[in-house]
C-alpha cells in the first residue's frame, strides 16, 4: 500500500505562487476578491505563508507554500461528529462534502489551520463556470473543504493503469501543484517506497516537518533553505 507524501525544497522555491493558482483551477476553488480577502474568507487549499524575522540584524522574510499536511495522526478527523473527514488507507486526509454538517470543529482543531469553510454559495465570474474541472465536485454553501492531494487524479491514474494492464508507475499520479511548479521545487510520491524520490529526499539533512513537536506526523516534508 502506498503512503503518499510531498517534499517541498525551499531552496528551489521562488515563491512564484504558480502552485497556488494551479490548485485553485484544478480543484474548482472559488476565486477570491479583495473584499472576501479582507473579511478573512478566501479559500486557498495551498497558500503561501510569510515568516518574518524582523529582529535586527537578522531581518529576513521567508515564504512557505502550505498545502494540507496530510498528517498520519490528524487532529481534524478525531473531532468530526459525523465522520465527514477521514484518512484513507493510503494516508490521504479527505473531506466528504456531502456529509459535512458545517460545525467547523475540524477547522478549529487543525493546528495548521488548513481547512476552509464555504461562508456563502461559491460563485465564479461570469463565463468561468464553464471551465470548471469536471473531475472535482463543486462544493456547496455551509460545508468544509480542504486539500486532497488531488486524489481524483489518483483515481484516474489507477483506472488508466488497470485499463493498460500495468502497475501504477511513480509518475502516474502527481497533484496539480507539483506538476505546475516551474522551479521543480515540489516532489510527490510514495513515502513507503525506500527508492522513491520523496523517500530519499525525506532522509536529507535539510528535511524538517512543520510543528513536528505536536506529534501529528505530517506527510509534507520541507527541505530548509540556505544550508
Amino acid at each position, binding site marked *: 500500500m502506498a503512503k503518499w507524501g510531498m517534499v517541498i525544497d525551499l531552496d528551489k522555491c521562488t515563491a512564484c505562487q504558480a502552485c497556488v493558482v494551479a490548485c485553485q483551477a484544478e480543484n474548482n476553488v472559488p476565486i477570491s476578491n479583495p473584499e472576501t480577502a479582507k473579511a*478573512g474568507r478566501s479559500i486557498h487549499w495551498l497558500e503561501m505563508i510569510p515568516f518574518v524575522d524582523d529582529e535586527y540584524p537578522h531581518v529576513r522574510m521567508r515564504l512557505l507554500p502550505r498545502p494540507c499536511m496530510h498528517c498520519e495522526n490528524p487532529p481534524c478527523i478525531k473531532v468530526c461528529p459525523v465522520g465527514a473527514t477521514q484518512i484513507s488507507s493510503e494516508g490521504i486526509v479527505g473531506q466528504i462534502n456531502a456529509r459535512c454538517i*458545517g460545525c467547523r470543529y475540524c477547522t478549529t482543531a487543525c493546528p495548521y489551520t488548513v481547512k476552509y469553510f464555504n*461562508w456563502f454559495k461559491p460563485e465564479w465570474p461570469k463565463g468561468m463556470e464553464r471551465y470548471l474541472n469536471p473531475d472535482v465536485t463543486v462544493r456547496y454553501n455551509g460545508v468544509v473543504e480542504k486539500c486532497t492531494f488531488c486524489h481524483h487524479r489518483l483515481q484516474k491514474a489507477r483506472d488508466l493503469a488497470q485499463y493498460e494492464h500495468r502497475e501504477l508507475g511513480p509518475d502516474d499520479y502527481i497533484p496539480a501543484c507539483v506538476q505546475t511548479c516551474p522551479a521543480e521545487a515540489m516532489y510527490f510520491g510514495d513515502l513507503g517506497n525506500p527508492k522513491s524520490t520523496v523517500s530519499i529526499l525525506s532522509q536529507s539533512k535539510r528535511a524538517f516537518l512543520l510543528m513536528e513537536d505536536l506529534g501529528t506526523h505530517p506527510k509534507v516534508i520541507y527541505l530548509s533553505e540556505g544550508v
Partner: protein
Amino acid sequence: MDLKKAFEHDEKTLLKPILESNRNYYITVCLLSLVVAWGFFAYFHQLRNGLGVTGLNRPVYWGFYITNFVFFIGISHAGTLISAILRIAQAEWRRAITRSAEVITVMVIFFGVASILMDLGRPDRIMNIIKFGRFESPLLWDVTSITIYLTASTVYLFLPLIPDIALMRDKANKRKWLYTVLALGWTGTPRQFHRLETAISVMAILVIPVAVSVHTVVSFVFAMTIQPMWHSAIFGPYFVVGAIYSGIAALIIAMALIRWVYHLEDYLKDIHFNNLGTLLFVMTLLWSYFTFSEYLTTFYGAEPSHMQVFWAKFNGEFRFEFWGMILCCLVIPGIFLSNRKLRTIKGCVFASAAITIGMWLERFIIVVPTLANPRLPYDRGVYHPSWVELSLLAGCFAFFILLYVLFTKFFPIVSIWEIQEGRKHAVAEVAGRVRSYLPDAYNIKNDVDVETKTFTNAETFIGNT
C-alpha cells in the same frame, strides 16, 4: 399559628399570578415577542444566505454562537443542580426557591441547543449526527449528555409540580383540562406523597452527576483539541464552577424579578437572598482561584504559542473583554457579596447582573482569542459580530424570558405544597434533627412547648443575622 388560615393565604397569594393578569403583563409579552420575531427574521436571513452573514471568518471559525452555547448551558446549572444540592442537604430555606431555579434549567437548555443549531453551516443535515454519529468526537458527548440532562431536568421539574397542578385542577377555574391531564390523578393521599418524595430524592441524586457531566463535556469540546490555551486539564472543573457561578447569579436575578412583579416579598425574603448571596460569594472565590491557576500556569510556562493568546487577552486586542471579565466576576461581586451591609437584595442583584455579563465575557474570552491567534503566521481576520449574531443573542434572551414569564402564568412559581409542608412538618422535623445532633444524655424530651419555643428563638436568631 392557625395552619388553615396560613394555607389559605399561601394558595391565594401564590395562585394570584396565574388567575389574574394586568396590563403590564401583556405589554411585556408583546415586547418580548417582537424581539423573538426579530430573532427569527435574522435566523431565516442566515438560513437563506449562509453563515457568511455573520462576522465569522478564518481563523475565527467560532464566535458568538459557540459563546452563547457555553453561556446558556452554564446558566442552566442554576436550577437543577442548586435545587438538588439544597434538597439533599435538607436546607429548609430552599422551599420557596427551588421551583424558580428548576424552571431556569429546563427553559435555558433549549437555547444552548439552539445556539449550536444556529452555528451549523448545514442545519438541514442535523440527522447525520444520528446516522453517522462518531463517539470519538466530543460533540457527540455533548449531544448525549445534554439530551440526558434535558430529560432528567424536565422530570425533576415536573415531579414537584404534580401536587400544585392538582391544586389548580381543584381550585382554579381555567385550563381545567390541561391541569387534569398533567395532575396524573393526584389526590394527595399519604401513599402518593411518600412515592412522590421518594421519586424526588432519587431524581435529586441522579441529576447531580448528569449536571456535572454536561458542563465537563462542554469544556472537553475545547480541551480535547491541541490548540493553545484550550488544551488544558483544568477546563472540566473550571467550566463546572463557572456554570454554577453564573447559574446562581441568574437565579438571584430571576427571584428578584418574581418577588418584585408578583409582590412575593413574604415568600422570597431577605434571608433567601442573603443565603444565596453567601453561596455566590463562595463561588466567586472558587472561580477566581481557577482563573488564577489557569493563567498563572500558562504565564509561567511561557510557551510561545500560548503566550500569543495570553497577551492578546492581557493587553492585546481582547484586553477590554478580559479586564471587563475581571471587573464583573471578581471585583464587583467581591465588594458586594463579602460584606453583610452590601449583601442586601439590591446588592445581590447588582452583583448577579455583573456576574452574568462577566461570565458571558469569560466564555467569549475562552473561545475567540485562541482561534484569532493560530500558530502559523497567517493574515488574521478581526472578528466583529454582525447584526445577525447580535439579533440572535437578543432573540435567545427574549425567548427565554418569554418562556419563563409564560411558565409563571401557567404554574405557581413558588411551590405551594412544599411551603405548606414546611409549615406543617418541617419545623418539628428540624427541631428533632437538631436534637439528634446533641449528646443524648440530659437531652430535652419531646415537648410541644419546647419545640415551639426553640423554633421561635431560631427564627429570631436567623432574622437577626
